[in-house]
C-alpha cells in the first residue's frame, strides 16, 4: 500500500513525463498538495476516509481557495476564490489530494478544449494531433495519462461525457440537482453539473457517493438521499430493459463508431439485458433547444465579469461604460463573445418568445418524451459522439459543425437526466469510443449497474495510451 507521500510523488512524476505532450493543467498546485498530504499524515481519522491520498485534478471552473479559479479565461486569469466549491470541500473531507486545476474551453463553452483562454493547448494522449474533447478536456487527459488518479469535470451539454469518450475513460454527469453547483463558475444554471472522471466505473460510483447530496448553499440541490452507487455496481443486468433510440443511429453517425456501439449493445444482451428499439422523435431539435437556452443563461451569468469585482483590470482613463466594453471585449475569447451575443439576442425584446421562449417549451416536450420512454425501459444506451476525437483545428472555423457534434449528449442535459460514458472500443486508428448510458432522474444506480456489468465483461479499462515520443 503506497503511502500518501508516494502517491503524490507518483502523480508529480507522471506529470513530468506527460505534461509537455498533453497540457492537461492550467496550474499545478504542488505546495497545496504537499500541505494536504502533510495534513493527512497527521490525521488518523482522515486516513480512513474513502478517498484518502487519492490524487485529483479539478477543472478550472470549480472554485478552490488555493491556486486560481479562472475557467481558463483571461478575464479571470489571476482570480483567487475566497471559498472552495462544495464538491471540493467534500473531496477534501474524504482525504483527497488536489494536484492542480485542469484545462478547459473558456467558461465551459466549446466541445474540444480548443477554446481555452489561457495556455496550454490540451491534446489527446492517444494521438496528440487530435483534440481531447471538451470542455473537461484537461480532466479527461489527466486521468487517461495517469497524471492523477481521478478528476472532477463539469457537464452542461456533454462536457464530461464527450472528453471521457474521446480519451477512453469513464465520465459521469449526474441528474440535475444531484450534486451541488455551489462554487461552480456558472455557464447554464439550469444545466450545469459537476461529476467524476475516472479509469473505472466503480471509482466514479465511489466519488459520486462522496460529492452528491443536498447542499444548503445550492437551492437547486435535491433533498433526495444519495443512492448506493457502489453496491449497484455488483447487481448485474439480467432482465434489465435497455432502450436503443433509433434517432441516435441516423445519418451523421460515423460507420466505425456505429459498429463499435452495436457490438457493445450485443454484449449487453449477452449479459442478460433485454434490448428494445425505442424512438425519441424530438432528438434532432435538442441541439437548437440546448444552445438557445445555454447561451441565453450564459449571457446573464457572464454579465458579472466587469473587470472590477472579480479582477482588477488595468486602469486607463476611461468612463465606466468604456471600461466594461473594453475589458469584456479584450478579456473574453471569440466563442464566449459569440455565445453572449447569441444569448442576448435570444432574450432580447421582440425575439425572446420566438427563440428562448419557444426553446423552453420544446424542452418540456423533450423531458416528457424521455419520461415516457423510461416507462418501458430501465436505461437508454447509444453513442456519446457521432465521431471519435477529431483533428485539432478541424472544426474551429465552423462553429455550427462544432455544435452539431453534440447531438447525442445535449438532449440528456436538456431533460436533466443522468448519463455516463464508459469505454467500449477503439477505432482502427486506436482512438477510444465511449458508450453512453442514460438513466431516469435520480436513477444513477441503474446507470452504474449497466456500466459496471459491461466493464467487468470487457478489457477496455486496461488499455493505456503509450507515452508520446
Amino acid at each position, binding site marked *: 500500500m503506497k503511502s500518501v507521500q508516494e502517491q503524490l510523488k507518483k502523480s508529480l512524476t507522471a506529470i513530468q513525463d506527460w505534461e509537455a505532450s498533453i497540457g492537461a493543467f492550467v496550474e499545478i498546485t504542488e505546495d497545496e498538495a504537499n500541505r494536504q498530504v502533510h495534513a493527512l499524515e497527521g490525521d488518523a481519522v482522515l486516513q480512513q476516509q474513502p478517498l484518502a491520498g487519492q490524487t485529483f485534478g479539478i477543472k478550472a471552473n470549480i472554485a478552490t481557495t488555493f491556486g486560481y479559479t479562472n475557467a481558463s479565461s483571461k478575464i479571470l486569469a489571476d482570480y483567487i476564490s475566497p471559498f472552495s466549491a462544495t464538491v471540493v470541500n467534500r473531496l477534501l473531507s474524504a482525504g483527497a489530494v488536489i494536484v492542480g486545476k485542469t484545462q478547459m474551453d473558456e467558461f465551459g463553452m466549446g466541445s474540444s478544449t480548443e477554446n481555452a483562454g489561457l495556455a496550454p493547448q490540451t491534446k489527446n494522449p492517444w494521438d496528440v494531433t487530435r483534440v481531447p474533447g471538451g470542455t473537461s478536456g484537461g480532466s479527461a487527459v489527466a486521468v487517461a495519462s495517469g497524471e492523477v488518479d481521478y478528476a472532477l469535470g463539469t457537464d452542461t451539454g456533454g462536457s464530461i461525457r464527450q472528453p471521457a469518450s474521446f480519451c477512453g475513460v469513464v465520465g459521469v454527469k449526474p441528474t440535475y440537482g444531484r450534486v451541488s453547483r455551489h462554487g461552480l463558475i456558472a455557464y447554464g444554471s439550469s444545466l450545469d453539473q459537476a461529476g467524476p472522471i475516472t479509469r473505472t466505473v466503480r471509482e466514479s460510483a465511489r466519488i459520486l457517493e462522496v460529492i452528491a447530496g443536498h447542499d444548503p448553499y445550492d437551492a437547486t440541490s435535491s433533498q433526495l438521499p444519495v443512492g448506493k452507487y457502489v453496491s449497484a455496481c455488483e447487481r448485474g443486468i439480467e432482465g434489465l430493459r435497455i432502450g436503443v433510440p433509433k434517432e441516435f443511429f441516423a445519418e451523421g453517425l460515423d460507420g466505425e463508431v456505429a459498429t463499435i456501439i452495436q457490438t457493445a449493445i450485443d454484449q449487453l444482451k449477452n449479459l442478460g439485458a433485454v434490448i428494445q428499439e425505442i424512438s425519441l422523435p424530438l432528438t434532432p431539435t435538442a441541439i437548437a433547444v440546448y444552445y438557445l437556452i445555454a447561451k441565453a443563461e450564459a449571457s446573464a451569468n457572464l454579465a458579472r465579469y466587469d473587470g472590477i469585482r472579480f479582477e*482588477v483590470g488595468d486602469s486607463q482613463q476611461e*468612463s465606466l461604460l468604456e471600461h466594461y466594453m473594453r475589458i469584456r471585449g479584450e478579456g473574453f475569447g471569440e466563442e464566449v463573445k459569440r455565445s453572449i*451575443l447569441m444569448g442576448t439576442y435570444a432574450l432580447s425584446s421582440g425575439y425572446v418568445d420566438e427563440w428562448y421562449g419557444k426553446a423552453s417549451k420544446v424542452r418540456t416536450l423533450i423531458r416528457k418524451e424521455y419520461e415516457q420512454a423510461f416507462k418501458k425501459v430501465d436505461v437508454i444506451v447509444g453513442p456519446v459522439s457521432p465521431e471519435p476525437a477529431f483533428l485539432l483545428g478541424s472544426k474551429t472555423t465552423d462553429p455550427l459543425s462544432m455544435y452539431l457534434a453534440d447531438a447525442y449528449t445535449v438532449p440528456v442535459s436538456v431533460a*436533466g437526466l443522468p448519463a455516463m460514458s464508459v469505454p467500449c472500443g477503439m477505432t482502427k486508428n486506436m482512438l477510444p469510443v465511449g458508450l453512453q448510458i442514460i438513466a431516469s432522474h435520480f436513477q444513477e444506480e441503474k446507470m452504474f449497474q449497466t456500466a459496471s456489468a459491461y466493464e467487468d465483461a470487457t478489457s477496455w479499462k486496461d488499455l493505456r495510451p503509450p507515452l508520446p515520443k
Partner: protein
Amino acid sequence: MISPEEIKKIADLARLELSLSETSRASADISAILEHFQTISTINTDDVTADTSTEVQNVMREDKACANILASPQELLANTKTTNGYVEVPGVFANIALP
C-alpha cells in the same frame, strides 16, 4: 439574417467592444446558427409550459445571520481595487482621474 448593425446593437447591450471584423464574423456565424435552429418553430407547443429543470420550489431559510460565513469582507474584496473599504470604479462620466 442578423446584420452586422444588429450585432453591434446587441454587443452594446452586452457591453462587448467588438472590432469590425469580429462584428462581421459574428453576423455570419450567428445567422448560420440561427437559421439552422429555426426548425424548433415547426414543433407544436400549444398548451405547453416552459420547463423548470427541477422540481424544487421556494427553497427558503430562516432570516437569521449565519454562524458560518463563507469568507470575511477582506477576503471577498481581495480581488478588487478598494480605497478605505470602498470598491473603486471608473467614473460614470468620462475621464475622471482618481487622486
